[in-house]
Structure formats: structure tokens, C-alpha cells
């Protein structure tokens, strides 16, 4: 899933304070699961912004709505009947959703309430970690199912750097060395000879080096 976290409240207050009528939109997908922008977080944020306005003596009308998904046009359309009553949309979706609002409603301000952080999953309740960097050319079958692009701080392809110490990364000792994890997996799988295979330099054209990416499935288009 996409993992995000709410921006500092003061930053959100500053970006929303010019507006008197605000539509706060949450998303029922990834940001609900990572407790950043679901219905509950929308409710909390609305209460906080209402209090900030009340305290400053600013009039502020807020409507809260949480859509099933903010990265599909049909759901973004659901706010069309009432969006004209509001000056701006404060999106509690990931940055994809925020941009969908900007694209769909060109005359409305689309403001991000979240910092979209990474693609990952939960390690435990309240803890999330990055697992995919979206490089566009998966090599997990060659690295024991551990991604060296997302989990090695230097995105090394052929073993660890000299900063790997005791299984930890030199960037931050709280980060496990990605290549130590790969080695441990290869040992567990009985595939340690795979470690000696040299991986060619990665073609980053499938990543951001090729510009913004798009996938077209002709068999699905209407």
C-alpha cells in the first residue's frame, strides 16, 4: 500500500487559513489502513481546523467526506454535486488523490493534508516500513525476495557496501542492511551460490529516469 502521514498541523492550518469554506476529503484505501487519511483522521482534522478558526475568530465552514478511493475518476466525481459550495479541497488522500482533485476540478484549490511517504506495509500496529521503490523492473527472484533497491540505502546490486556492520546499515543503525537480509534468505533457501552471480548495471529507464510512467492495457480500455 501507499504509506503516508499527516503533515504538521500548523502547516495545514497555514495553507487552509485563507479559505472560509473547506471540503475535507478522505480516502478509504491505503491511507485509511495506515491511519493517515481515513474517515477517522478526517474527523479529527476537521475538529482541529474548526478549533483553530474558532480561536482566531475566522469563519470556517467545513464539510467532511470520505470516498471509497481517490485514485479513480468515478469516485472523484462523487463530490461534483456539492464541490462548488467550497473554495478548496483539503485532501487526506495520498498525493495521487490530491492530484486527481486538481485535474478533475481545475478551478478549485487542491491542498495536501498528507506527506505521501513510500510503498510499504505494516510491521506491527502503528509501524510501517518501505518495501518497494517502484523501479519498474522487479528483481526479487534474484535476491531471495528481498529488494536491494528499496531496502539497501545505496541501492547496491552486488552485495553490501563497506558500511554494513553487524547486519546494520551505516546510514542509520536502526536500518537492517538489505544485503545482510538477502544473504540470510539465500542461506535459509540453500541458494548461497546465487550470491556470486554478478548483476548487470540496472536500466533505470523503467524507473523515474524515463519520465512519468504510464501503463496502457489495450485489452481493458473501452
Amino acid at each position, binding site marked *: 500500500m501507499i504509506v503516508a502521514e499527516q503533515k504538521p498541523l500548523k502547516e495545514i*492550518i497555514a495553507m487552509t487559513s485563507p479559505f472560509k469554506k473547506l471540503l475535507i476529503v478522505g480516502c478509504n484505501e491505503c491511507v485509511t489502513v495506515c491511519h493517515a487519511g481515513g474517515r477517522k483522521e478526517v474527523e479529527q482534522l476537521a*475538529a482541529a481546523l*474548526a*478549533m483553530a478558526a*474558532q480561536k482566531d*475568530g475566522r*469563519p*470556517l*465552514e467545513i464539510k467532511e467526506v470520505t470516498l471509497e478511493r481517490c485514485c479513480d475518476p468515478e469516485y472523484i466525481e462523487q463530490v461534483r454535486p456539492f464541490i462548488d459550495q467550497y473554495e478548496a479541497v483539503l485532501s487526506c488522500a495520498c498525493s495521487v488523490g490530491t492530484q486527481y482533485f486538481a485535474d478533475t476540478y481545475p478551478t478549485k484549490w487542491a491542498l495536501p493534508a498528507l506527506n505521501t511517504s513510500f510503498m510499504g506495509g505494516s510491521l506491527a500496529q502503528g509501524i510501517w516500513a518501505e518495501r518497494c521503490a517502484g523501479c519498474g523492473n522487479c528483481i526479487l527472484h534474484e535476491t531471495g525476495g528481498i529488494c536491494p533497491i528499496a531496502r539497501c540505502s545505496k541501492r547496491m546490486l552486488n552485495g553490501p557496501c563497506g558500511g554494513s556492520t553487524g547486519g546494520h546499515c551505516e546510514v542509520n543503525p536502526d536500518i537492517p542492511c538489505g544485503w545482510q537480509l538477502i544473504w540470510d534468505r539465500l542461506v535459509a533457501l540453500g541458494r548461497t551460490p546465487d550470491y556470486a552471480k554478478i548483476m548487470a548495471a540496472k536500466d533505470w529507464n523503467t524507473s523515474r529516469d524515463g519520465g512519468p510512467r504510464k501503463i496502457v492495457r489495450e485489452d481493458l480500455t473501452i
Partner: protein
Amino acid sequence: MSEAFEPTIIAYTCHFCPYEMADKAGEQGLSYPTNVSIIEVPCTGRIDVIHLLRAFQDGADGVYVVACKEGECHHKTGNLVAKKRLQYTKKILDDLEIGSERLEMRYIMTGEVPHFARIAQEMTDKIRALGPNPVKNGGAAHKA
């Protein structure tokens, strides 16, 4: 700040040790300030951030949560969950410049009947000294 200021205080109170002690305080004729309104909850772990924020949004000058002592929760960890949510809410209150000191957590064990009245008095004195919740003095913000 007017000397006549009388704070409105909400006390989210766990159904088990704390509420029982509040009940017994009444039975024993122990008085506590009328500023405090008790909201009984099945466990302080049920209290969410929004419940605390709503109290301030609706005009409370102070809010406190009365939980069973750590290690004594009838639901094992409800009071520990509540403690973390209070910390999270305190940060919001500071960001809003309402003041995190208006929100407190207190603990009561079974048998500590006078403690309930004492906490109520302490909180009332503290909030009275802090003055009114600044949200109350503001403009016409409202939720659609």
C-alpha cells in the same frame, strides 16, 4: 481573566475502579466541584482522540481522563492505550495553542474514595488558574 470564571471540566471516567470510587464518594457525602461533569466510559481504552478534541471544541476548559492504575486495567491495556492517545492529543492542543496542560490523565485504585474528590478539586483549581479555553472566545467557526 475574570475572577468570576468558573471552568467547565469533563472527566472521562472508567466504569471500573474510578467510576466506582466516584459513586462511593457520593454515597459517603464527599463533595467535589460542580465544575466537573463525569462521562462514564466502559474502559479508558475506548476514548479516542476525537472524543477529547470534541470536548474542547464544544467549550470544555479542561478535560481529564480517570483510569485504573497501570497494571490494574480490567481490559489489561486500556489505560496504556488511553495514555498514548492523550499524548497524541496533547500535541494537537499545543499546535492549536490551546495548551496541552488543559488535558490530564489521573489514576485511581479501588478503595481510593477521597482521591476522586481530590483530583476533581485539583483539576478545577488548575483550569481556573489557566483561564477559559481560547476556542470559546473566538469567532463563528462551525461544521456543516
